């Protein structure tokens, strides 16, 4: 099947349409077939004499990955032909702009880089949560849908921690795209999800500056440069880049995985909350480290060997974003103290956990005039201070703690949406939090959160019995 198929011809249940891509590894056609409810494309690999077998393996890997992944950030798998007879892969056709074209417009302003970065980080997080590492994140493999969400394509180099790695071999060698490949991939490691974060960092560097941090090396020793080379800080190239964005980018392209973010969710979190990014020396750097510092890094890197990384799902689990729903109107009651204890126990077991303390303001004054808005922001600040006070016993470094005051009439919905948007792994909430009565036939806030949350919910009760409708018997005996 080395030649292009003619429009109108058929393979199994599919009728070939226009050829939309004619690349080295194969062809991509629009196809029609049994109604999937969305438009389809078919990938057909180039096979036959003189074709690299790696391309066929990549095709097989992609088929294996797509049929195992369920994610709105990945084209849906529809069908595959038998690899021994008629190899093809039918997937959802994604309407979107290839990120390559955004690179063409670079340097892009800070907020646009952050928006794209957060969208790609969402997509990477979704993969990692399914134990999949993409291992070839680059602009050409990212589509941006019209609504701004990112879709990752081309899973030919990907790895699924629960399936045999067809790209693996005894003698490890670098497999990836030279510009974006992570240092550990250069060493032949295909098991670290943080490799995707490194590549994301290179993409963001490129979008923000129009330049590549490590160039386009052609040799193995050129690839190894990224194990020690300190790239030019983005703000040295484009002074308009916000320091916080430089902080995020340089943290992503740290040579050692454990110096990077522990999860894609935490990257997305920072890109969406610039004011919560903890600035370190990375943010203010305007030049490369000096000669001697470089020599030192080189010497360290020279001895670096491939390290075994825990699988993606374990790394995601070890770096949860925990949302504590705090009732800042009743900070001193037993329930809030019980909540503190519960959060401490959760955070204590996960050194990479990040705590977001959230309070929802219901009754903010109407926005009519300068004075009222001052009052609103005054209230806002007041609750932020209370949240910070509440979180003090957690004794967390600033990069692991943030406080957020949300405003909205529907407290439960606000909490659930916040958890969803920030890939929270757990919401910790008090059972009788927000002491308001139930609204008509509606559910309590805690019930609504526990039913609608996108993640686990830890419902905390204080040891003191709650007086009121929930515990009449206790009340009676206490009085009797």
């Amino acid at each position, binding site marked *: 099947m080395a030649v292009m198929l003619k429009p109108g011809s058929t393979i199994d249940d599919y009728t070939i349409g226009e050829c939309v891509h004619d690349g080295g590894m194969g062809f991509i056609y629009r196809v029609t077939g049994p109604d999937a409810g969305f438009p389809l494309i078919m990938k057909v690999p180039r096979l036959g004499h003189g074709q690299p077998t*790696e391309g066929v393996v990549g095709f097989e890997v992609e088929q294996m990955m797509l049929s195992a992944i369920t994610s709105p950030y990945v084209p849906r798998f529809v069908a595959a032909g038998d690899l021994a007879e008629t190899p093809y892969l039918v997937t959802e056709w994604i309407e979107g702009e290839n990120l390559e074209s955004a690179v063409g417009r670079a340097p892009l302003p800070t907020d646009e880089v952050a928006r794209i970065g957060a969208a790609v980080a969402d997509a990477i997080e979704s993969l990692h949560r399914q134990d999949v590492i993409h291992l070839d994140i680059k602009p050409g493999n990212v589509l941006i849908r019209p609504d701004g969400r990112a879709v990752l394509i081309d899973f030919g180099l990907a790895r699924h921690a629960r399936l045999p790695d067809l790209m693996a*071999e005894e003698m490890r060698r670098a497999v990836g795209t030279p510009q974006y490949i992570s240092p550990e991939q250069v060493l032949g490691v295909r098991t670290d999800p943080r490799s995707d974060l490194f590549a994301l960092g290179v993409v963001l560097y490129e979008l923000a500056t129009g330049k590549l941090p490590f160039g386009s090396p052609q040799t193995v020793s050129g690839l190894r440069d990224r194990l020690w080379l300190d790239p030019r800080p983005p703000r040295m190239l484009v002074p308009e880049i916000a320091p916080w964005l430089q902080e995020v980018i340089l943290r992503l392209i740290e040579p050692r995985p454990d110096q990077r973010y522990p999860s894609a969710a935490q990257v997305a979190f920072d890109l969406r909350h610039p004011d919560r990014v903890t600035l370190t020396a990375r943010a203010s750097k305007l030049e490369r480290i000096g000669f001697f510092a470089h020599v030192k890094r080189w010497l360290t890197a020279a001895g670096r060997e491939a390290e075994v990384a825990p699988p993606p799902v374990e790394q995601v689990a070890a770096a949860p974003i925990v949302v504590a729903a705090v009732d800042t109107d009743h900070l001193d009651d037993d329930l809030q103290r019980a909540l503190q204890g519960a959060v401490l126990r959760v955070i204590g077991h996960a050194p990479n956990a990040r705590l977001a303390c959230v309070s929802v303001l219901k009754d903010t004054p109407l926005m009519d005039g300068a004075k009222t808005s001052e009052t609103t922001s005054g209230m806002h600040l007041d609750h932020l201070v209370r949240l910070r006070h509440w979180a003090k016993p957690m004794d967390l470094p600033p990069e692991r703690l943030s406080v957020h005051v949300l405003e909205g009439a529907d407290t439960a919905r606000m909490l659930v949406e916040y958890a969803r948007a920030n890939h929270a792994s757990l919401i910790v909430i008090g059972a009788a939090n927000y002491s308001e009565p139930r609204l008509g036939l509606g559910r309590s806030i805690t019930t609504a959160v526990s039913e609608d949350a996108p993640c686990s919910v830890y419902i905390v009760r204080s040891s003191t019995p709650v007086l009121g409708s929930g515990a009449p018997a206790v009340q009676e005996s206490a009085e009797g």
Partner: protein
Amino acid sequence: MKLALLADVHSNLEALDACMRHARREGAERFVFLGDIVGYGADPGAVVDVVAAQVAAGGLAVKGNHDDAVRNAGTDLNDDARAAIDWTRGRLDQAQAAFLDGLPLIVREDGVCWVHASANSPGDWNYVTDDLQAARSMGAAETTWCFSGHVHDQVLYYQGAGRRLMAFRPLPGVPIPVGRHRRWLAIVGSAGQPRDGNSAAAYALFDTRRAQLVFHRVPYDHEAASAKILAAGLPASLARRLRDGH
């Protein structure tokens, strides 16, 4: 068709029963026994009867070294295994012993090779413990898929990007595509005497139509199986092994 693949049942009726019930729930239509039906455990007769009934119903069984040792006293075994087989011999009736004796060493059908140990000289009971042994067995099998036991841990050998085979440690319950365009050698794990620190019985399901393999672990009443071993007067270490899983 979904095939349930069980190896190294070793006279463990509780484990066999749990695996077969699990497999039926998962839609297994045919049972394949990859040798070492007897040895170590306390229920040789009952286990042979179950296997023989499956073979009569269209299933398949190949001979393992412990099965061989029932008739062939010259087979090389360690002391515990020897003691168990000597005990087993007296617990099997004529028909049961004849069934074991009549089992084939190796069967090839529809692109699959079934064998207890290595397909390379199967009667020598070579252990497939690394990629080189696996390559030898795969080469001798001359089929797309080769399924075996003898080694008690679940492993899937496959051709990666390099010249040598890669060993993959499967996770229970995860379907693995094993397409017929490449070659695979799976060790399905021991149903009756797991040795990887996990006491749950091991087996695998092979879906021939979808070319998909799922390794399973099934918790079973290993306390009951251990108690029977002790009651039978078999070595206590064999009972302990079922509890500890190694």
